[in-house]
């Protein structure tokens, strides 16, 4: 009951369910880009900075990051019921469409046109991820580490994972740990 009432939030479990259904059914190639659009830009349940903070937890824990994020949002407002409803919303329509697509694939999957179309969609999906990441970078403006340090950490992580193919765990433990310690010192110094 301490949540500030002035800001937008899901009105009901139904609202939660349909919001996640809507973003899930649009989410070709992965739902995260659509989550950012829906939750931050349209519904404004989260600011972009809050989205990044929640994303940090969702991405670090085991499980599909987007699903983790939906559970975090759903449970924040409606507890266990909210978490269940969010997950249900994420899977309800996509379960049907994936069954249809599996049938279609069994029939047309070997067609070179289909393979080329999928490659085209893959290239677009890649662009969606990159653009969402670039948008989220703007949220780092308010990060206590300061923009330069944030950018150095981000660049090192990108180069390590994408170009040098370091193991994810090492990047998260090494660079993530460094980010944690630096932020901790900074926050402690302020308080």
């Amino acid at each position, binding site marked *: 009951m301490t949540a500030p009432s002035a800001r937008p939030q899901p009105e009901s479990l139904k609202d939660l369910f349909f919001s996640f259904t809507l973003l899930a059914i649009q*989410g070709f190639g992965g739902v995260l880009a659509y989550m950012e659009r829906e939750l931050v830009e349209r519904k404004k349940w989260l600011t972009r900075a809050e989205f990044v903070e929640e994303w940090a937890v969702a991405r670090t*824990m085991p499980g*599909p990051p987007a699903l983790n994020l939906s559970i975090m949002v759903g449970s924040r407002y409606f507890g266990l019921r909210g978490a269940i409803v969010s997950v249900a919303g994420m899977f309800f329509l996509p379960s049907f469409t994936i069954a249809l697509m599996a049938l279609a694939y069994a029939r047309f999957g070997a067609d070179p046109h289909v393979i080329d179309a999928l490659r*085209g969609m893959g290239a677009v*999906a890649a662009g969606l*991820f990159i653009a969402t990441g670039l948008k989220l970078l703007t949220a780092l403006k308010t*990060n206590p580490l300061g923009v330069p340090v944030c950018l150095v950490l981000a660049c090192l992580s990108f180069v390590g994972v994408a170009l040098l193919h370091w193991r994810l765990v090492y990047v998260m433990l090494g660079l993530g740990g460094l980010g944690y310690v630096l932020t901790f010192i900074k926050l402690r110094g302020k308080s």
Partner: protein
Amino acid sequence: MNAPLSFVMQWTDWFDLLTHFFLFSVSSIGGPLVLLPEIHHYLVTQQHWLTSSQFSASVVIAQAAPGPNVLFVALLGWNIGFNAGGLFVGFFAAVLCMVGMLLPSCALIFVTAKWVYKNRELIAVRAFKLGMGPIVIALLIASGWMLATGNTEAARDWPLWALTAATTVIVARTKINMFWLLLTGATLGATGLLTIG
């Protein structure tokens, strides 16, 4: 190589399948796609419940379909069940695999989310959420990068790379519905415009 498989699943096999997916679930930091090699090894190489082409088709379909990519696990289960006994078993196995893949990680994030929210003022919690920020954003960009460059070569596939670049700029700068971009990508691909030579 990829002859149709036919076998009978004992209840101990179902149990083995479920517990393996429980294990995959708790170790799927970064998402289930990270575990593709391990899952492939278990289902295809070790147990022979699935052909290699059924495995890759499941992943391709789930990535092209709307919704969370983890649905490839449902397709894996579907194929296993179908190989073992037909439609009904396929449906059962799809649900079983999804429950195995999701239940542990969902329970874990639920408990964590509660704890994190309750202790959101602690410096230790704030430092984690803020300090991990740059890294997890970079990982997102990196996964887009790897999606764009995996299985492609600059000299041969530059139209695909150009499409990725154009999409990036458009999505970052406009509020266009992303569905139209995907449709454009599919159309360009299907008409052969993205294939050189």
